[in-house]
């Protein structure tokens, strides 16, 4: 789909606003390792992963790592690659400075052939110049910033995004609202710059699609009570709510909606796929709708979920969204490595430009993860599904909402 210029700008602004961490001042990586990692034909091929394994983003970073581990185990067990893969995982605690330092060590000392990026856009922005500066390929597993794939940056040739980006998600959410033909769509966000910027962008995008936000309310971040906000929206006659919150605030909003017994569709963001959200919300999260990359009717997704739950347990990542993206990142990388003869750097980068994953764990049936020359964003159209929570469990809400590449 062709996106008109202004909307693209608006979406980019939203994406920028939603980058979780600040961009660190990363120094350019050394150019000594120009070959881009291990090309020897001896021993296992090392793959790096830099993500938040502790702290607030660990509920994203850990499932990603588990997905990566599952993929590596399966590949090594099958032995079809001809070479063993070995994971080198480093915790950056979602801190840009630590992430940059980890990247430096990974490319100079560990000799990884490629680095998988973690869940936070801010840390990826910090570590990407170092990784690509050393001539090493980076695949971004889960971070959604629209600006992570930027042809203007020096490392663009070596950078690949596995996940759909923010604009992709927002477009799908707007589509959901359009399909619902609601009379009064309302919005909720916190009073931080992130929240207010988000509402502003949503307004702009809505206008372009001929929709409008009837009422918007805000609240302190990590609020202790959202009764006034919920009652305000209810009494304003809203018949659908765009909840631009995640974690605790989203959980509290849903609790309150359920408490005052208000039947209203509430649509939130992809971050609600975290087990942490489910843990806070419990059954009170019931009814919230959000985008996901899991299609329960797709055979490859079913196989992945079965294998994942067998290895890590059902409660490890009940939504499977982030683990699936980690898993698929390895599968894309493995296809590239096979084609490049396990050579990293430019060879791997150009090999990746011919890779297509038809049976990825993530994505709706019929969608693919495909890289082409000059297009390093993998998800094809109709990649997303919408999920909800019922009785404290993740449930499919709809497979019918169209989603398009921005």
């Amino acid at each position, binding site marked *: 789909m062709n996106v008109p210029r202004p909307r693209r700008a608006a979406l980019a602004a939203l994406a920028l606003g939603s980058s979780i961490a600040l961009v660190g001042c990363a120094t350019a990586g050394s150019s000594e390792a120009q070959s881009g990692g291990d090309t020897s034909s001896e021993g296992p091929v090392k793959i790096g992963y830099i993500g938040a394994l502790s*702290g*607030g983003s660990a509920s994203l970073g850990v499932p990603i790592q588990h997905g990566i581990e599952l993929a590596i185990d399966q590949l090594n067990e099958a032995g079809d690659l001809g070479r063993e893969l070995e994971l080198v995982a480093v915790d950056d605690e979602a801190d840009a400075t630590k992430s940059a330092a980890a990247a430096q060590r990974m490319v100079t000392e560990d000799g990884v052939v490629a680095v998988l990026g973690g869940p936070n856009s801010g840390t990826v922005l910090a570590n990407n110049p170092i990784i690509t500066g050393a001539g090493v390929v980076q695949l971004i597993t889960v971070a959604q910033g629209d600006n992570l794939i930027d042809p203007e940056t020096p490392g663009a040739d070596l950078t690949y995004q596995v996940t759909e980006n923010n604009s992709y998600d927002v477009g799908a959410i707007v589509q959901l609202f359009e399909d619902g033909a609601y009379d009064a769509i309302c919005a909720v966000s916190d009073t931080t710059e992130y929240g207010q910027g988000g509402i502003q962008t949503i307004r702009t995008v809505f206008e372009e699609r001929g929709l409008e936000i009837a009422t918007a309310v805000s609240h*302190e971040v*990590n609020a*202790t009570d959202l*009764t*006034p906000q919920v009652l305000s929206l209810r009494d304003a006659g809203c018949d659908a709510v765009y909840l631009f919150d995640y974690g605790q605030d989203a959980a509290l909003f849903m*609790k309150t909606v359920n408490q*005052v017994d208000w039947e209203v569709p509430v649509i939130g963001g992809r971050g609600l796929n975290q087990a942490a959200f489910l843990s806070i919300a419990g059954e009170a999260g019931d009814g919230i709708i959000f985008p996901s990359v899991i299609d329960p009717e797709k055979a490859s997704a079913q196989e992945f979920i079965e294998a994942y739950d067998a290895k890590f347990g059902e409660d490890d990542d009940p939504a499977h969204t982030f683990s699936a993206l980690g898993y698929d990142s390895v599968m894309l990388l493995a296809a590239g490595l096979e084609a490049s003869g396990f050579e990293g750097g430019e060879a791997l980068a150009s090999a990746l430009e011919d890779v297509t994953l038809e049976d990825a764990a993530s994505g709706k049936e019929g969608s693919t993860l495909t890289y082409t020359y000059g297009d390093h964003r993998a998800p094809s159209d109709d990649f997303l599904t919408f999920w909800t929570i019922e009785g404290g469990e993740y449930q499919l809400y709809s497979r019918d909402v169209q989603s398009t590449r921005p």
Partner: protein
Amino acid sequence: MTTFLQLAVSGIALGSIYGLVALGFLVIYHATGLVNFAQGQLLMAGAMTAYVLLMQLDLGYPLVLLGVVVVALLLALVFRYGIHRPMVRRGAPTENMVVATIAFGLVLTAAAELGIGNTRYGVDPIFPGAPIAIGGVSMQTQSIVITAVAWVLVGLVWFFFTKTLTGVSLRAVGLNRTAAAVSGVRVSRLITVAFALSVIVTAVGGALVAPIIGAGPSMGLAIAVKGFAAAVLGGMSSVYRGMVAGVAIGLIEMLSSYYISSAYAPVIAYTILFLALVLMPARVRKSGATA
């Protein structure tokens, strides 16, 4: 009207938590003159303890509450014997001690982040089940529990301070340490009692609020600021006035958020705190502490 009542019910529950934190502030302040800025983190410690015992170790609520009290007691002893008393003995100025309370709070936060994790965790309510609706006003059972327990605790603390010899002696320690000492009151021990009481009340507040807003290392500050506002607004004098002020702040927050603007609600709450800080000192001096 229903909307108003609904907001009022929420405001009272929320304000009762502010009141408990105010109570925690006041108990230490009365006994030692120290304003304890770690109160919010002590609330967090209670919530996190409840999370670990209830959700990770699957203990029942009676044991969870007992565990929260035990952990609170331990923290109080660490605070008192590890930080407060050594500083008093070295004749540290009050401002150093206030900084020490801030540092203690930061350490608690870091410990919770490292030991448990830096995110919000859900905590099951004491009585799970659907909200209770009365005449169009619905209440979460946990909100009812919070309000009831908070007021019972305030009642108990009031009883302790006015009807028991230990409580009256503790007030004497705060009002006039010489008077207490020459009367044979074990001053040092009673200050420890005050720390224990304060931390227990605050930590129980944290355990109560966790099922509503979750438990996480950074949860304490917002509540502590409003609890402190309640203590000041209540004249820094009596426990029940702090409680009433807490409920007032909770109500103002809820009502202004609905009837004026949700975006300005925090501003309104903090304006009240500023006004309280600017206008109150004169009254505090005049009234002195009366339980």
